[in-house]
C-alpha cells in the first residue's frame, strides 16, 4: 500500500549567485499520479524538482510533505535528464540502490532479473552500463529508480533525445508505476507527451508558477497568457 505523499511549498525561493532562479513559490501538490511541470527553458523546472527532492537548498521559505520528511526522502527516487551510470555492469547498476537498502542477495537478484527483463536488457546484464546506447541508459536509469519501489518518482526530461520506440517503452513503464500507486512528478518539453500522460500540470515561467490545474483544464482552456502562448508553440519570454 503506497502512502499519500502530497507536498506543500510556502514562499520558497532559490537564489544562485545572488540571482533568484525560482520563486517565491507557494504550491500544494496533490498525490495526483502524473504531475507535469511545464515551461520554457530556464523557467526553473529542474530547480523545482530538485527542491522537492531535497537536493537543492532553498534560500527561504519552507516545504512540508504529508509524511515525516525522512520517510518522504526514503520513498523518493530521481531520474536525471542525462542518465548517470555507475561505472559498473548493468546488473551492478540495478543492484546498487537495493544494496543501500540492505536487502538480502536473493531478493536483490530476483528484483534485478525482473527489471532487466522488463527493460529488455537481460542479455546485457554483465555488460558495462556505459557501453549501452542513450535510450538503453535512460531505461536503465529509470529501472534503477523504480527498483526501489518509490512512492514518489521525479523525472527530469526522461525522454529528451530519445527515439519513438524508446519513448513508448518508457511511457509504458511509467504508466505501470502509476497504476502500482507511485506518484510521478516530471518535467518535459514534449507537449504531446504531457498530453498523453499528465493528470495535473504546473506551468512555470521565469521561476514563478503561472498556472496550476488539472491536465484537462490546462490543455483545453489555459488560464494564463504565458501558458496559452506556450501551448500555441509561441516563444515565451
Amino acid at each position, binding site marked *: 500500500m503506497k502512502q499519500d505523499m502530497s507536498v506543500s511549498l510556502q514562499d520558497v525561493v532559490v537564489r544562485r549567485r545572488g540571482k533568484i532562479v525560482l520563486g517565491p513559490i507557494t504550491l500544494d501538490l496533490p498525490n495526483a499520479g502524473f504531475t507535469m511541470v511545464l515551461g520554457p527553458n530556464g523557467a526553473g523546472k529542474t530547480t523545482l524538482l530538485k527542491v522537492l*527532492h531535497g*537536493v537543492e537548498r532553498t534560500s527561504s521559505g519552507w516545504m512540508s510533505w504529508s509524511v515525516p520528511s525522512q520517510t518522504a*526522502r*526514503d520513498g523518493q*527516487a*530521481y531520474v*536525471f535528464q542525462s542518465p*548517470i551510470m*555507475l*561505472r*559498473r555492469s548493468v546488473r551492478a547498476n540495478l543492484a*546498487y*540502490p537495493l544494496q*543501500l537498502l540492505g536487502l538480502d542477495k536473493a531478493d536483490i537478484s530476483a528484483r534485478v532479473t525482473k527489471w532487466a527483463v522488463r527493460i529488455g536488457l537481460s542479455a546485457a546484464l554483465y*555488460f*558495462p552500463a*556505459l*557501453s549501452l546506447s542513450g535510450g538503453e541508459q535512460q531505461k536503465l536509469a529509470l529501472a534503477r529508480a523504480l527498483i526501489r519501489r518509490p512512492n514518489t518518482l521525479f523525472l527530469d526530461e526522461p525522454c529528451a533525445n530519445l527515439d519513438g520506440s524508446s519513448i513508448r517503452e518508457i511511457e509504458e513503464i511509467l504508466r505501470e508505476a502509476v497504476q502500482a500507486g507511485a506518484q510521478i512528478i516530471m518535467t518535459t518539453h514534449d507537449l504531446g507527451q504531457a498530453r498523453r500522460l499528465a493528470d495535473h500540470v504546473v506551468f512555470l515561467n521565469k521561476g514563478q508558477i503561472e498556472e496550476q490545474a488539472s491536465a484537462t483544464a490546462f490543455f483545453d482552456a489555459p488560464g494564463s497568457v504565458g501558458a496559452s502562448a506556450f501551448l500555441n508553440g509561441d516563444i515565451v519570454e
Partner: protein
Amino acid sequence: MIEIWAGIAEAFRLIWSLDEDLIDITVRSLKVSLTALVIASTLALPLGTWLAIHRFSYRRFTISVLNALMGLPPVVVGLIVYMLLSRSGPFGVMGLLFTPTAMIIAQVIIISPLIASITHQAMRELWFEYHDLLISLNTTKRQRVGALIWDGRRTLLTAALAGFGRAIGEVGAIMIVGGNIDQVTRVLTTAIALETGKGDFALALGLGFILITLSLLVNLTIHALSRTESEGRW
C-alpha cells in the same frame, strides 16, 4: 655500447645461474617496496578520496601542501627518518635504524603524497560525475567514499603503481636509513649504486636490467589480475 651488451649478458647469467645474492637482494627489494606500497595505499587512497568529496576550511591549502609533498626530496626524507630513528632521536629506543623497517618507513613517507594526490585528482572527476546520483540515493559519506573507491579502482591502481614505481626505484633515502648492509638492507638500487662506485659497470647494468624487468612484471601482473583493459569502457 660494449658495456651495455656486457650488462645484458651479466643480467642473463645472474638469472640463469639463480645467483643466491641476486635472489636475496631481489626478494628484499620486493618485500620492502610492496610493504611500503600496501601501507601507503591504505593511508593515501581513502585520504585522497575523502579530500575529493569533503568540504572544509583550508581544503585548498591542504591539497596544495599534498601536491607539494609529491616533490619531497628522498634524501631529505632519509635524513629526517635517520634523525628520528637514530639512537639520540625520539624513536631511537626502537632500534629500527639500518633495518628494512626503516626503509619501509622512508618509502611510505615518500610515496604516500604521490598516491594521495593522484587519487584526489581522479576521485574529484568521478565525484563530479556521481555527485547528483549518490546524493539522490541518500547515501552516507562512508557509502560515497566506498562507491568512488570501488568504481575508480582502476584509476587508483594506476596511482598505486606510480607509488610502486617510485618506491622500487628509490635509492637516496633507503641508502641513508638502511645503510646498504649486505644480506640485511641491500636492495637492487643500493646494490647498483655500490657496484657503480666499485667500477663494476657490467654487474651494475645487469642489476639495472633486472630492476626494470621486475618493475614491468609487477605492473603487468597487477594489471592482469585486475583485468584493467578487459571490461570495456569504465
